[in-house]
């Protein structure tokens, strides 16, 4: 009897434990697969979540924000391109987060960083930032971001200047804002505008992932500015643009064309701005545009 019970226990140990271990790893692997291909998920509208937070709206906003940033980080690490649906989810999440706690700064900063450059949704980003301006009236950064978007992306210099002036009038705003509007109006849609802006944004951020992305974009912009300056020199010497950017190297204005960190090809736009075929966005495995 005693031996029989021992035998049963040993048999259970030898069969069940390995079986559990195998199923455990299979299940986790499957979950990883499910999460990779999962659609973006669902964010509850703020009208409901504000009630269902039962007084913990602030905490819920932190959680929803983490969810949005993790979702983006997940796609980014796995090199999966954000689809239009993914961006819908992302933008909506930021909207809900700022409905839950409209004073929360992070979603506005993240929205400015990603909805413009990566998603090309300038109006969504501006609408989000304007919501923030209503609440964070003491914060110069939000009008500053909206102003930048008008300058660089929307090429609306008049509106851009208005927002920058508004930012400059807020107590505690940095002194450079007062002259920035004038400088940006001079550079307009050129790379220098974005360079000034990104340097400022980088100096204030604490997020490693976002910083790495911004560093890369900063490097690309610095190189674009370098080429633009050589181009300017060439233009004032010869009175016309070179036929191709290679001519700048041949005539000695540049040592060599610096490579675009995003792997694109440099070119000249008709307004004299240097652009890259990569648009300073990481190349995508699939060609969905």
């Amino acid at each position, binding site marked *: 009897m005693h031996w029989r019970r021992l035998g049963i226990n040993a048999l259970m140990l030898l069969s069940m434990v390995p079986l559990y271990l195998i199923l455990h790893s299979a299940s986790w692997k499957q979950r990883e697969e499910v999460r990779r291909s999962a659609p973006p998920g669902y964010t509850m509208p703020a009208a409901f979540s504000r*009630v269902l937070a039962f007084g913990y709206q*602030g905490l819920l906003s*932190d959680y929803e924000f983490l969810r949005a940033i993790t979702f983006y980080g997940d796609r980014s690490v796995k090199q999966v391109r954000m689809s239009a649906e993914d961006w819908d989810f992302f933008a909506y999440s930021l909207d809900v987060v700022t409905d839950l706690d409209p*004073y929360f700064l*992070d979603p506005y*900063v993240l929205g400015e960083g990603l909805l413009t450059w990566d998603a090309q949704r300038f109006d969504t980003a501006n609408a989000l930032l304007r919501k923030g301006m209503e609440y964070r009236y003491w914060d110069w950064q939000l009008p500053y971001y909206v102003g930048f978007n008008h300058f660089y992306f929307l090429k609306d210099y008049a509106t851009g200047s208005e927002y920058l002036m508004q930012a400059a009038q807020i107590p505690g705003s940095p002194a450079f804002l007062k002259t920035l509007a004038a400088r940006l109006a001079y550079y307009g849609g050129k790379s220098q505008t974005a360079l000034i802006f990104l340097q400022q944004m980088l100096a204030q*951020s*604490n*997020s490693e992932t976002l910083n790495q992305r911004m560093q890369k974009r900063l490097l690309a912009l610095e190189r674009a500015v370098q080429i633009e300056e050589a181009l300017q020199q060439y233009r004032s010497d010869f009175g016309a643009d070179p036929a191709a950017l290679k001519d700048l190297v041949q005539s000695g204005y540049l040592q060599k064309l610096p490579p675009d960190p995003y792997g694109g090809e440099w070119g000249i736009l008709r307004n004299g701005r240097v652009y890259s075929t990569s648009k300073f966005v990481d190349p995508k495995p699939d060609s969905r545009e």
Partner: protein
Amino acid sequence: MLKRVGALAVVTCKEGIRDRSLFGILLFALFVLGLNVAVAGFFMRDLGKVTVDMNLAALSFAGLLLVFFIGINLMAKDIDKKTIHLVLSKPFSRGEYIYGKYLGLVLLVVCTLALLLVFSTTTVAGVNAMYPEYFGGFSWSVYFWAVAFIGVQLALLCAIVVFFSAITTSSFITLVFSVATYLVGVSIEEVLFYLKSQAAAGEVAASETLRAVLEIVAWLVPNFSAFDLKTEAAHGLALEPVRLLTSAGYGLGYVLILLWLATLIFRRREFN
């Protein structure tokens, strides 16, 4: 009379401290505070807001657990275990019993909150020292006001527990009624204002009756949002003294009415 009420309050509070679940609640709060230190780094700029959110949530949730699980037990035990006969055979009026029990619960809540506040202050100061440049709008005075109003909110909740204990016979029913009252009270403001804004926008026309019903509910149930200063504390927004006074007065008024009703009912009650 004051002496008797005070003695009962102290005994009730001591009995609550002896409850083992108190350690569980304190451990839970400490865990959240520790989690806060770990999680703060995930955010970009507003670390001060996240820290304050988590700290105040830990404090208020620990308080809720305390009132719902230990508080209700303290009230109901006397009736469940028939020890109330022993207490009422002493020279106590029934009104004194209600007030004593209530003050004991409040004392327990205040002691626990004070202890947790020490830990929470340490956490906030620690995270503040770790990331000083991301604590822009933070203000200690607003933070302490928010904690004080968590105390007011819990005191109100204690009164609700005492009231339902006085009129029901089982601690489980008291628990269900108190939790339900809390959930309604904490969300009524949001729902009412949402309906008002919807009505103003002309979107939902059929909800007139619903709104009328909710208006009546809002008179009966305390509006817990009035004591919620978490957003203000998270961003260091200015607090007007009038607002603090009004909220505190509103809470005190509600507590007094509830305790008065509880004594009225408790006096007529028969125990068997």
